[in-house]
């Protein structure tokens, strides 16, 4: 017995919460520098450029690309095993279960666009460094702005609801009280992160 399914599922859970959670926090942290204006974000982006290239690329591949591909591809397999039914069983947790999968589908498409365009095409192929001005120009299109806000909110919800289910999957929160406390904390975190996203996205229209 090698229990491949068990280890893949647990790896999927760890990879989503710890690794991709870190990536999400990094994105929110760096992007929130836009609130300080063009210099704020550009300084933060230049600081990241100080990381030696081989280490930076290594981090991007090992810390983002591989975990994201694994979590995404195995996640699609998991999502296909569910038949969402909140219309008949409209409990909060069941809605969250369905939303976890709907946000996942949206994120698969959104992230292909986001990584494919900004990282691979703009930064990789054309060699243009990402800057406040570049993003400001990118966000001139209101459709792009709406899709980016929804993309961020989807990722934030997926991560925060993931905290609650992670705690159940690893047997950390067993009883209803502890599960409720964790889900309240994670939803507060979700609201906070969504608000920060709205503020830093708004800053492109202020400066």
């Amino acid at each position, binding site marked *: 017995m090698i229990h491949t399914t*068990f280890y893949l599922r647990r790896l999927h859970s760890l990879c989503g919460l710890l690794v991709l959670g870190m990536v999400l926090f990094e994105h929110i942290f760096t992007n929130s520098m836009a609130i300080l204006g063009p210099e704020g974000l550009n300084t933060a982006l230049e600081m990241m450029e100080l990381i030696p290239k081989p280490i930076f690329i290594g981090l991007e591949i090992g810390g983002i690309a591989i975990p994201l591909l694994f979590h995404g591809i195995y996640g699609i397999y998991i999502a296909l095993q569910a*038949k*969402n039914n909140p219309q008949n069983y409209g409990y909060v947790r069941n809605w969250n279960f369905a939303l976890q999968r709907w946000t996942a589908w949206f994120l698969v498409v959104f992230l292909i666009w986001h990584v494919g365009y900004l990282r691979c095409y703009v930064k990789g192929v054309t060699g243009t460094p990402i800057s406040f001005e570049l993003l400001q120009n990118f966000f001139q299109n209101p459709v792009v702005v709406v899709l980016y806000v929804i993309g961020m909110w989807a990722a934030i919800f997926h991560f925060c609801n993931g905290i609650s289910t992670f705690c159940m999957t690893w047997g950390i929160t067993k*009883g*209803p009280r502890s599960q409720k406390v964790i889900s309240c904390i994670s939803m507060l975190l979700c609201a906070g992160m969504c608000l920060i996203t709205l503020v830093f996205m708004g800053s492109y229209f202020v400066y």
Partner: protein
Amino acid sequence: MAEKVRFIIERQDAPDAKPYNQEFDVDYRPGLNVVASLMEIQKNPVTVDGKKVPPVVWECNCLEKVCGACMMVINGKAQQACCALVDNLKKPIKLQPARTFPVIRDLLIDRSRMFEALKRIQGWIELDGSWENRDAPIQNPYTARTAYEISRCMTCGCCLEACPNVGPQSDFIGPAPTVQAYLFNLHPLGKFDAPKRLNVLMEKGGITSCGNSQNCEAVCPKSIKLTKYLAQLNRDVNIQALKNIFDN
């Protein structure tokens, strides 16, 4: 004229036949439940259009929420027909078979997948003899209440029907059989086979297929705290996995 209660019943003539709806009216009486209504329809199987049809097939046995046989989908929710009071249901009342299971005919389903799952998780205790009363191993008094709670599971299948992860699209054995593993792991003799049961739960279709929608607990007619025991089993399989890795 007595007040009528309208039933919309999803019928199916054979396992592979196409389902269709038929409507029936039943005379209202105080305390009327869905099983009693189905019995009335059986006595006089005439649809609202006045057409005489073959009586509706369904299953029931104890009529007091103990056997689990009459589980069906009533107004979209899986529940026991014997304790579904007409007074508490939105009219017209829609009855459907629990399609997570193979439909045999009308509302009659084949629930054997749950019994197959119980075989898989070793839902029994290996005995090699019997004891005199005073020598017998005793139930842990601190977990006896939990064991009693889980032992009331009647394999009705409500939790499997409500679980979004149980169905033809997935191989999840479902909440009820999974949690039974915990019952037998609590037993003073059953606990000897606990590693065996936990290893089975780590296989494909076992506890890892649980997606924490928590519908199972919400619909359980026996109020078994399924999600709590699923979380406990998650804890147990994680520890078992560490043992599997480091004990060798």
